[in-house]
C-alpha cells in the first residue's frame, strides 16, 4: 500500500506509492508533440511584425530590433492576462477584496528554430534565455507596483501551451502568489525554530539519502522531492544558500544552464511528456535573506487532476520519487 507523506515546506500531505508498486514511465498515457503550425507561426523569424515590438533580444551581427537575426527574443504577450497601464485602485465590495489587474505579461521566444524545444537547445542557448529572464526580471522589479516576478514555461497542449514554438513567460504581479506565500510562511517558521534554511536542510537530507538525486554539478543539484505533487516531479536547486533567482551570479549562469539542459533532456528521453516548469524565488525586496532558497520546479503532465485533488488538495502520486529518480538517472544521454 502507498504511504502518506507530509512536506515540511507548506505542510501538504500526499499519498505516495511505495517503490514496489510504483508505475513505470511506460504506464502513463502521453500525448504526441508533432509541430504542424510552422507556416503560420508568429514566433518564427521573418514574422517579427506579428508580435508586439520586442522589449529585449539576443541578436547577432548588429541586426535591428524586430527583424531577423536573433536567437532569443522577449515580446509583450499579445493577449496579456494583466495590463501594464494604470493604478491598482484597491477596493472592497462587502466581504470581498479586489484591485485592477495591473501587471506585466511577457513572452520569451527561446529559439528561432520552430522545431526545437528547450531540451534540444545547447547550454549556450539556454544561457541566453537565462540572461533574458534576469534582464527582464530586474527591469520589471523596478516598478514599485509589483511585488513578485514569476517565470514559467508550458510545453505541450495538456500543459496549457497554446503555441507550439518553444517559449516561456514572465509575469510581474502586484501581490505574492499563494503557493510562494505558503512556502515563505513555512520556511520562515522553520527558520525561527531552528535558525537554519529549510531548503538547505532538505538538500542535506537528499545528499544523505542519495536515492532521489538525479544529477549534480558544483553549483546545482536536481532531484525528485520526497513529497511530490505529481509523478516524476523534479526540482533544481542551487547548492549554496541563495534567496533570489534574479541575483544569480555571472559564474552560476552556465552551471545552471547545464543543469536545466540535463534535467529536461533526461525527462524528454524518459517520458517525452508535456510539462510545466516555474522558478520559485523570493518576492521583490524580500528582507529575510536567510529564510528562502530559490529553486525550479519541473512537473511533467502525466495524469489528470482528480476531483478530490482539486477539491481538497490531497494529492496521490503513483510513482515514488526514489523510483522516478532511478528512471531519470538511468537515461543514457550520450
Amino acid at each position, binding site marked *: *500500500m*502507498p*504511504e*502518506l*507523506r*507530509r512536506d*515540511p515546506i*507548506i*505542510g*501538504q*500531505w500526499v*499519498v505516495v506509492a511505495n517503490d514496489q508498486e510504483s508505475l513505470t514511465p511506460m504506464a502513463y498515457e502521453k500525448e504526441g508533440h508533432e509541430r504542424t503550425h510552422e507556416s503560420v507561426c508568429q514566433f518564427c523569424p521573418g514574422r517579427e511584425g506579428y508580435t508586439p515590438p520586442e522589449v529585449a533580444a539576443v541578436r547577432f551581427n548588429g541586426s535591428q530590433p524586430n527583424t531577423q537575426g536573433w536567437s532569443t527574443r522577449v515580446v509583450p504577450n499579445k*493577449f496579456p*492576462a494583466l*495590463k501594464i497601464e*494604470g493604478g491598482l485602485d484597491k477596493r472592497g*465590495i*462587502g*466581504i*470581498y*477584496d*479586489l*484591485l*485592477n*489587474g495591473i501587471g506585466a505579461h511577457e513572452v520569451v521566444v527561446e529559439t528561432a528554430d520552430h522545431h526545437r524545444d528547450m531540451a534540444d537547445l545547447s547550454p549556450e542557448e539556454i544561457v541566453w534565455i537565462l540572461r533574458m529572464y534576469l534582464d527582464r526580471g530586474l527591469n520589471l522589479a523596478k516598478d514599485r507596483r509589483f511585488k513578485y516576478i*514569476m517565470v*514559467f*514555461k*508550458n510545453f505541450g497542449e*495538456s*500543459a*496549457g*501551451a497554446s503555441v507550439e514554438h518553444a517559449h516561456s513567460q514572465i*509575469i510581474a*504581479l502586484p501581490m505574492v*502568489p*499563494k*503557493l*510562494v506565500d*505558503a512556502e515563505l510562511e513555512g520556511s520562515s517558521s522553520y527558520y525561527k525554530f531552528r535558525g537554519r534554511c529549510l531548503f538547505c*536542510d532538505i538538500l542535506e*537530507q537528499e545528499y*544523505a539519502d542519495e536515492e532521489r538525486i538525479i544529477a549534480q554539478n558544483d553549483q546545482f543539484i536536481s532531484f525528485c522531492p*520526497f513529497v511530490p505533487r505529481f509523478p516524476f516531479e523534479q526540482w533544481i536547486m542551487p547548492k549554496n544558500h541563495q534567496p533570489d533567482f534574479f541575483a544569480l551570479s555571472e559564474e552560476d549562469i552556465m552551471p545552471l544552464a547545464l543543469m536545466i539542459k540535463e534535467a529536461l533532456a533526461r525527462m524528454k528521453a524518459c517520458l517525452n511528456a508535456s510539462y*510545466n516548469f*516555474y522558478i*520559485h524565488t523570493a518576492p521583490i525586496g524580500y528582507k529575510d535573506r536567510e529564510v528562502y532558497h530559490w529553486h525550479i*520546479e519541473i*512537473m511533467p503532465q502525466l495524469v*489528470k487532476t*482528480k*476531483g*478530490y*485533488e*482539486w*477539491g*481538497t*488538495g*490531497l494529492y*496521490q502520486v503513483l510513482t515514488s520519487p526514489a523510483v522516478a529518480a532511478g528512471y531519470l538517472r538511468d537515461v543514457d544521454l550520450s
Partner: protein
Amino acid sequence: MPQLRKDPVIRRWVIIATERARRPGNFVTSQNVDFGNKKDCPFCHNTDPEIFAIRPQGSGSGDWQVKVAPSGTPILSIDTKFKRHGFGLYDVIKNYGAHEVVIETPEHIANMADLSQEQIRRVMEAYVSRFKDLEKDTNLQYVFVYKNYGLASGSRPIGHARSQIIASPVNPLRVKEKLAGAKKYYDYHERCLYCDMYRQELESKERLIRETEHFVAFSPFAPRFPFETIILPKKHCCDFADGVAGMEGDLALILKDILLRFKIGLDDPAYNYVIHTAPLRQKRKGAKWQTIEEDYHWHIEIMPRLAKAAGFEKGSGFYICAIPPEDTAEFLRKVDVHA
C-alpha cells in the same frame, strides 16, 4: 481592465480576465465519451461486499436502491495499523484510512443529473450514514465525499453514476487553509464568513444561480475555473452530516438543478464535486477546535472540467479565470431546466 480578486476564505488571488473574455457559450464542450458497454458495467450487478445499502421499505435483503462498497482501487485502506513516524525532515504515516464507492442507482445511468430528486435524496442519506459510521474511528481526522463524472474529471470510462468517500488520518491542505481562513474571519468579526457570504450573494444577486428553501447556489467571487459553483446551506452548521438533517430532499433538489444546468447549458461536460465539512472532532476538543462549531460552515463545491490548469496556475497557486463569474452565473440562471 482585468481584475485581481481575492478569495475571502483562503486568501488566494485570482486574475479575472475581462477583455480577453470569451462568451459563456464558448466554453461548451461536448465530451463525446464512449462510456463502455452496459453489460461489462461492474456497478450494474455489483457483487462487491456491501458496507451499507438503502432498500425499499420493508424489503430486508432484496434489491438495493443505493449501495456503498469498498473501492476497487483504494488510495487509503484500513488494513494497516495506524502508525506515525518521522523520516528526517519529513512526517510519514503508513497507509491508513478508508475509500468507498457509493453506487447511486441500480440502473445504468451515467449522470447524477438524470436521477430523480428522490433518488439523489437517498444518495445524500447514504453519505450521512457513512459519515456517522466513519467518524467513530478516532485515528481518522477527515472524511470527504467527492464525485468524478466524465473522463476529463479523472473518472474511469464507466457510464454508471457513483461517488466516492475517502476517510483520511490527516486534514488535506486546502481543508486546513479553509478552516484557518474561516477561523481568522471569525476571530475578528465574531461572525461566520460563509453566513456573511451567502447573505451578500443573496443581496447582490449578480452571482446567484438558484435559491431554494434551505440552500443557495452561486458562482464564487474569485473562482479558479469558469463555471465553478458553490452550494451553501442557509442554516449555519459546521458539519455536513448534522447540518443536512431534515434538508436532504431540498439538497437533492438544488444539486439536481445545478447539474442539469451544466448538462443542458454546457452540453454534458465532465465535472467534479466535493463536500466540504468540518474535521472529525471526537477527542479533539483542544484549543484548535474551540470555535469550530461557530466559525466553519459546510458546503459543496462543483466544477465542470472545461479549462486546463497550466504551469502558471499549478506552480504559483495563482489562477487565471477566463470569464467573470457574474457572466457564468447569468448564463446558468438562464438555462431552461424544464426543457
